[in-house]
Structures are given as C-alpha cells and as structure tokens.
C-alpha cells in the first residue's frame, strides 16, 4: 500500500456517487445526527457531529462535481482539501465512528451518514491516514489469515479440544455440506465455546457442516480500514472455499462487521452475486427452530437483557431472531430503553476497538451503555457479536461493573435437548 495524497483524492472522487451527492445536497445543518451519536452525547464535543466527520469529502464533491464548486475552485475562492487536513480528520473518521449507523436512522433528510463514512475511509487509507492499529490488523489478516495472527494450527488445537469435550467429530474441508462454519479471531482466542456450541446444535439438527482450512476467519479489517482491494482479498478466501466445497450456506459467526463484510459487501466486492447463501448464526438458529430442528429444554431464570450488535440489527436486519430465541429461553428477558434498530453501539465497532489511541474515548462513550444497563437493572447481558463482547467486557471492568456477558449461540447450546 503506497499511500499518497493524490491516491487519496482520487479515491474520494471514485467513491462519490449519486446517493452521496444527494446526501450532501440535502444537509441543512440541523444537528440532529449529533444527538444520535454516542461520541457526541457522551462527550458534548460538537466536533463529533457525524456530518462534520465528512467535511473534506463534502468539499471534494462540491469542487469536483458541482458547477458552482468548480467555478469557485477555478477562481481560487474554494478552500482546497489538504493532506494536513486529512491527517487532522483521521481521529474523526476512524476513532470516533463505529459505523453504527444510528445517525443514518435519524437524519430528517435521510442522509445515510455511515454509508458515507465507510466510503470516505477508502480515501483516507489511500492517503495514508488510516490508524496504525487497523493497518497492522489488516496486514496481518492478509499475511497470516487473521487480523489477530491466528493460524490454522491454533484452530486445529481448538478442534481437538472440542472433539475431546463433546466426543463428536469436527468436519474439515468436507464437500457438499449444508453449512460452512466461520469464526472470528475473538472466538478462536477468547470464546472457544462457540465452535463447540455451533457443532452440537448443527449435529443435533441433523445438518451437515464443515470448517475450511483456508477460510476459517470471518472478520474483515479491509472493510473497517476502508481498502476495498484488501477487503475483496479477504472475502475472496471465503467465497473460494464455499464454492470449492460446494456448500449451500456460509454461516457468519457472532461478529457484526463480519456479517456486513460477507453478506452485504461481499458480492459487491467480488463483483458478482453468490451461488450460496450467507446467514448469520442467529438466522440459522431461527431457521432450525422454525423447521422444528432446534429442540430446547429448560430456561435461564435470571434477569437479562440483549445488546443488539449494530451491524446485525440496524445495518443487517437481524433483530427479531434473537428476541424469539430469548423469549423462549429466558423468562426474565428485559429490553433496554433503546433497542433493536435504535440500539446504542458498544463503542468499539467499525474497527475502533483495534485503534489503541482511541481507548480513552471508547471508555468514555461506554457511559451510554452503562446507563442503559443500570436502567434495566440486570447483571447478565446476552449479545451475538464477539467484538461487542470483548469491548463491553473491558469497559465493564474499567467501570467496576458486575455484569456478565453471554453469547447467544452458547446460551442456546447450553439448553439443547440432546436426549
């Protein structure tokens, strides 16, 4: 990646499309997007207003693609975008936007601001202003297969554990199966129970599945950093494995942005529709339940709540499935005040959790989730994104809060009727 200012400016021009032009044309500076953004609500600093994060991109649009803007540029009246300015904007475009899209839901003129931030990152990274942590993670993902540097041998070790614990085989590189199971680095490293849980559920349902040696990692830091070429390379590995093994469906793990990367951006990155389906594990669980193949027994009789991962609910449309499952499993399931598609982000999505310098800010904005948890008054929170889980576990520790977080898939597996 040889980054230059010119490459960045070209990338900006490249990503500008009719939706973005209409969004910039419509903004009336009403400031409502700020009220929807936890980086503003929790800090009170107006520089975190979502639409402001796009100011350099807006000026490129104006000076390149509008008549008045072009005239202003020719006559020297327009303020050109500079490399220094982009450097100054990096903390706004990366550290303080989790691509959660809450602003996109409230903008009265309908601006999809998260869509624009995602696009703006293409230019920022091309100009060399992507934060170091994200660059490192992406480079590692390209070289070793995982942003955390998790190699296949690590997965193999985990497979052995799962096989020993549950006495059932973990299929690898098997062809013509129903599902290709993917994991995120976090699940491989921090939450090994995920693989066992998925395996037991699928086996019990009589579904066939497999892991792929060359495509076990679902996360895609190319999406977060904003380099479509690298994002394509990472998604391509999964698509390659899914096609080679002729699977019917690829299961995105409990990870929000991995789902966005494969399900929504994937076909666009590859430039063609997929011949297989892509589903989040919660969608698969719900499919199995509908088909009568998910037999559960017992309940978890503890007051608990559900944290919607943004990429899953607001940006992905998976918000009913977890509630159906929780209503069945947890009689004391309670909703937080803003939930479903209007949830508040954990503060670490969109690559923010990989940016070291953003940590103090991430802790500060967690106050929103903290207030939500305190309001609903539970000690157990269920979610379906390993990144949300890691981010929130760290923040709960930081605030000395005694709250436990569970993955929904493992909760389902714990109540599987295996008799």
């Amino acid at each position, binding site marked *: 990646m040889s980054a230059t200012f010119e490459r960045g400016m070209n990338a900006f021009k490249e990503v*500008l*499309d*009719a*939706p*973005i*032009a*209409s*969004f910039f*044309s*419509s*903004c*009336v*500076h*009403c*400031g*409502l997007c*700020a*009220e*929807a953004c936890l980086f*503003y609500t929790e800090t*009170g600093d*107006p*520089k975190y*207003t979502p*639409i*402001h994060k796009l100011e350099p991109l807006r000026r490129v649009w104006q000076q390149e*693609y*509008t*008549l*008045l803007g072009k005239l202003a540029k020719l006559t020297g009246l327009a303020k050109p975008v500079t490399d220094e300015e982009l450097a100054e904007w990096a903390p706004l475009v990366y550290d303080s936007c989790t691509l959660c899209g809450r602003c*996109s*839901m*409230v*903008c*009265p*003129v*309908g*601006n*999809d601001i998260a*869509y624009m931030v995602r696009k703006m990152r293409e230019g920022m990274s091309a100009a060399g202003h992507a934060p170091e942590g994200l660059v490192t993670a992406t480079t590692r993902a390209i070289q070793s297969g995982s942003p955390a540097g998790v190699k296949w041998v690590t997965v193999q070790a985990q497979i052995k554990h799962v096989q020993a614990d549950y006495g059932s085989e973990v299929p690898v590189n098997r062809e013509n199966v129903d599902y290709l199971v993917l994991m995120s680095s976090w699940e491989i490293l921090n939450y090994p129970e995920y693989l066992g849980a998925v395996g037991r559920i699928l086996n019990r349902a009589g579904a066939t599945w497999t892991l792929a040696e060359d495509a076990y990692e679902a996360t895609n830091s190319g999406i977060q950093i904003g380099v479509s070429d690298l994002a394509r390379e990472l998604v391509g590995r999964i698509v390659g494995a899914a096609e080679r093994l002729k699977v019917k469906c690829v299961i995105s793990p409990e990870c929000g942005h991995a789902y966005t990367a494969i*399900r*929504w951006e*994937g*076909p*666009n990155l*590859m*430039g*063609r*529709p*997929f011949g297989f*389906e892509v589903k989040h594990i919660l969608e698969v669980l719900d499919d199995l339940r509908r088909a009568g193949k998910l037999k559960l027994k017992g309940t978890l009789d503890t007051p608990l709540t559900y944290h919607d991962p943004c990429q899953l*609910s*607001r*940006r*992905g*449309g998976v918000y009913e499935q977890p509630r159906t499952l929780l209503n069945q499993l947890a009689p004391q399931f309670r909703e937080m*005040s*803003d939930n479903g*598609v*209007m949830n508040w982000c954990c503060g670490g999505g969109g690559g923010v959790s990989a940016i070291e310098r953003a940590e103090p800010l991430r802790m500060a904005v967690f106050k929103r989730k903290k207030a939500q948890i305190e309001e609903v008054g539970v000690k157990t929170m269920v979610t379906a994104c390993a990144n949300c889980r890691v981010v929130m576990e760290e923040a709960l520790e930081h605030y000395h809060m005694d709250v436990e977080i569970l993955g929904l898939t493992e909760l389902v597996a714990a109540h599987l009727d295996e008799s």
Partner: protein
Amino acid sequence: MSALELLTWARGTGLSLALVIFVFGILLRLFEIFSLGRKADLSRARDTSPGSGWRTIVRRSLPPPGLFKRSPVTYIGGYVFHIGFAITLLFFVPHIELVRGLTGLSWPGLPMQVVDIAAVAAILALFVVLASRLTNPVKRFLSGAQDYFAWLLTLLPLLTGYLAFHHVIVDYTLMLALHILSVELLLVALPFTKLFHTVSVFVSRWYNGDIFGRKGVAS
C-alpha cells in the same frame, strides 16, 4: 425608478428571469446528482421490499424514538415553520390567483385569518430556529455564512408579504414590489444553496429507505 416601475419589472422581466434560473438550476443540480450514478447492489435483498424508498420519504417526517425529547426546539421549530410556510405559499388566495393567471390551475384557498396566523407562526418559528442555531453548540459549530444567508432569504418573502398585506411601514406598491423581488431572490438561490433540500430531500430519503429496506430494516 418609481415603486410602480419596480413592481412592473418585478412582475414581468424579474419573474421570468428568476423562474428560468430556478428551473434551469434545479435541472442542473439534479443532473449533477444523478450523473454520478450508482452501482447496482449485487447482494441478495433480504426481502423484496417494494416501496421502501417511498415509505421513507413519508416516514422521515416523523421523529425517531427518543429524538424529539433530545431536540424539541429543532422539531417543533421545524414543523411550525414548514407547515406555516406551506400554508402561506399555497393557500393564500392572491397566490392561487397568480398561479391561475400563469398556468390556469387553481385550488380552493384558506380564509385570510388562517393564512395570517400561519404566516406569523412561520416567522416566529424562523426566529426561534435562528436563536437555536446561535445557541446550540452543535448547530453553531456546523453553521457558516450560507446557513444564515439561507435563513434571511427564507424570512424576507414571509416578512415583506406580511407587511404588504397589512399595509404597514411603506406604501403597498413598494412593499409588494419588494415582496416579489424577495421571492425571486429565493427562487434564484434555491438550487445553489442548502435550500435545495426542498427538492433533494426526496432523493436522499429515497436512497436511505432503499439502502435500509433491502436489509430488512424499516426506517
């Protein structure tokens, strides 16, 4: 130039010029937007949600849960201004007569008293949102000269129209001429300032609804 000559120019050449720039400007701006194109989304839509873009055009007029409480002035000020302005523009009998003279189209107007209240409400709302823009840290931070210029351009037709109708300050002919000139200024500036949201809001809301709709998220 006498007040009558000014009025004659405003009603004739001025209006024609303003309308040409207004129409040409809108077409140009729409061309600038649509000519950038949009790549087809190759991901499989969750459900074929026909009309999600159109539904969002309507639904985005309502505040999403929780937002009204966080920013009541923006919402109330916005509603009162837009509704008041629309009533004044579209249901004031002389305005309808003007449109009928130009195009032959007409529709029933509202009683003068109703339009009067709507105009005053819209003017007051404009001052409330200006005060909010000057005091709210986010709005103040976002605002530049164009925001205040657009505010002034919106206020002038309402104010001059109100003064002309009530025959206050200066004589009727001059005030009517100023009223028409201020409308022409608004027409000329609309396509090239943030006032263009009057048109582009339908485009941006449609895209938003389309993007969210195919993912199964109603917005």
